[in-house]
């Protein structure tokens, strides 16, 4: 690629231009990645951490305010009633950044100083959490005082959100449901489409051109049209809202792209191979199963990835063709219709749920990107 850039032969200012190019690409990539990284980071933080600081601050310690009841008994001394102890409790440790005696001013005093509270009371807190509270009153105070202090909490990442999502929130069921929808809905259209694509690519019969045109036209038919009539049809033939319904629906909706992609690929296969096989006495069926199908593997893989991503990520078809009870929710429906409502404020849970739902497509995407790109190109560039 370096050679290609040399060919552009922009005399002078090339290094300047290339720095600008590099920087703008870096900028765009960062811009594109930031939202997803935010989600990923947030999914590993607990609810308190998420509301206390932005996810972009997650790697840094956070200053949080705490309120603890002074632990211990009052002792009578010449100065008055005194409690001594440590804010972090027995065996605890931490670093106090500020302290105070009132909720309204939790960070009124520096550690190591003595703060004057109301009615002559004083409070001393050291950085390590040791405190000394003095109340000059005559009678023993009834309640131990509450001490407010700020402390730095080290960055804390947790998998609690994922545990919650996968055990109690029902995301595990939704995951299985998504998988259940996806597998048959990906495999079955491939086979049906492959035979049709072969016929459209290599067999000669009347109306072939018209059929190809119809398939191309069907590529853009909005799914919305199919929802009401097909649900009605499913109800009439007795499968109603069920997994069978969604498998059939996805099969039907995926076919135009499948036939189109596969035909485009098969038409490009070398004519010699197919014709010499026919001269040797192979039937169309044999030519298809023994020669064309194995050679079309890349196109089959591209379509499989498309259909997999599309069915896995689909919300519309799942909402309409699957029953609307929680046992049959797929992940997209679970997130959109349940979690966003019932756990709308629980950002950690939402982030973890979203990440569970996009993890598998991302793995597929990064491992099989080559086929995905090839499929896109076959489908769009003619």
């Amino acid at each position, binding site marked *: 690629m370096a050679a290609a850039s040399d*060919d*552009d032969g922009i005399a002078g200012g090339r290094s300047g231009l290339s720095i600008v190019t590099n920087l703008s*690409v870096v900028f*765009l990539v960062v811009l*594109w*990645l*930031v939202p*997803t990284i935010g*989600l990923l980071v*947030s999914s590993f933080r607990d609810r308190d951490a*998420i*509301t206390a600081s932005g*996810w*972009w601050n997650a790697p840094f310690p956070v200053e949080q305010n705490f309120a603890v009841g002074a632990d211990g008994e009052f002792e009578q001394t010449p100065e008055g009633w005194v409690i001594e102890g440590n804010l972090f409790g027995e065996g605890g440790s931490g670093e106090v950044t500020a302290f105070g005696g009132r909720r309204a001013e939790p960070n009124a005093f520096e550690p190591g100083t003595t703060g004057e509270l109301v009615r002559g009371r004083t409070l001393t807190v050291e950085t390590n959490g040791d405190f000394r509270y003095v109340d000059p009153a005559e009678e023993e105070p009834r309640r131990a005082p509450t001490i407010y202090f700020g402390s730095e909490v080290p960055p804390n990442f947790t998998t609690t959100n994922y545990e919650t999502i996968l055990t109690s929130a029902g995301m595990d069921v939704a995951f299985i*449901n998504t998988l*259940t929808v996806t597998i*048959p809905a990906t495999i*079955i259209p491939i*086979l049906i489409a492959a*035979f*049709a694509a072969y016929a*459209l690519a290599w*067999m*000669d019969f009347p109306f072939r*051109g018209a*059929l190809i*045109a*119809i398939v*191309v*036209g069907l590529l*853009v*038919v909005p799914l*919305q*049209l199919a*929802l*009401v*009539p097909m649900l*009605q*049809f499913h109800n009439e033939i007795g499968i109603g809202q069920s997994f*069978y319904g969604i498998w*059939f*629906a996805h099969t*039907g909706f995926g076919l135009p792209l499948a*036939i189109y992609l596969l035909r485009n690929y098969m038409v490009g296969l070398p004519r010699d191979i197919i014709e010499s096989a026919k001269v040797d006495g192979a*039937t169309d*069926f044999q030519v298809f199963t023994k020669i064309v199908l194995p050679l079309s593997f890349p196109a089959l893989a591209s379509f499989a990835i498309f259909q997999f*991503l599309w069915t896995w990520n689909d*919300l*519309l078809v799942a909402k309409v063709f699957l029953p609307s009870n929680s046992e*049959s929710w797929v992940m997209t429906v679970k*997130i959109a219709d349940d979690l*966003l409502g019932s756990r709308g404020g629980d950002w950690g849970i*939402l*982030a973890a749920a979203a990440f569970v*739902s996009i993890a598998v497509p*991302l793995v597929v995407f990064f491992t099989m*990107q080559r086929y995905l790109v090839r499929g*896109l*190109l076959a489908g769009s*560039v003619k």
Partner: protein
Amino acid sequence: MSPLLQGILTVIIGVGGCIGYFWSANFVLDRFIFPAKGPEAGRNINRANAVRPWLFLLPAMLALGLYLVYPVFGSFWRSLFNRAGTDFVGFGNYAQLFGDSEFRTALFNNMLWVLVVPASATFLGLLVAQLTDRLSWGNIAKSLIFMPMAISFVGASLIWKFVYAVDPEIGIINAMRDIIGLSPLDPMQVGFWNNFFLMVILIWIQTGFAMVILSAALRGIPEETVEAAIIDGATPVQIFFRIKIPQIMGTIVVVWTTITILVLKVFDIVYTMTGGNFGTQILPSYMMEYMFRDDGRATAVAFVIMIIVLPVMIWNIVQARKEVR
């Protein structure tokens, strides 16, 4: 039986059934109906070969006819009936639609989406394709910008909910406003502009698609044309706009129309982000409001979407017919 087992069984039955159908249909055709022997062997082979394509096409044609062709007419027919489907109301549902201000908002917003999203995604895709073309790490950059394509619209919406969150400790937009001293606001409730904030999500997803295709198209430009331009003293900007763009114009149109079609179908983003509130309704999400409640109205909306898509469909078919000939 658990749904997953049911699914695996369906795969086995489905795949087995398909293979069984194709194999046995062929077998019956060649062995019994038109056997390639006897006095009419030659004629029978020709006859069998005339029938065979239709055997190969039959399952696909059935499925396509049932799930895509029939619904076009079925939906239109249904849209002529009232809510319960009992009374013929002619174009009553359509008249009601156009009388509904929410529908007009949805139509208007959809026009905005159709204008903005394909243009922005194609432009950004072209920009990234051109910029990364010369970079050593271009493929990594492209891969990362392409990544949102793998994410569901629901997942993407959630990702952007974090970006748009009102709390400046969660939403990065409001965090920035906080830094420059502005009070937090909810981008989803900013009238009119909230539509554009929603579009950003789809642009974020679709730029990768545009980039991949346009990048391949840029690579496909013959070297000589660029070299000739350089010899003639063209600047990089001139080369890009005068030499490269005209040569990939066909691909740009394809990308543009593909994204346009997608824009008309995507309901997930609006559904997840605002539920169509705050003046962000679009046709697909408007339709889902009536789905299950008033099928007459829902199918009427679906048919309006179909009519908007129709010109692209016809154009596609014309292109395809040209190619096949």
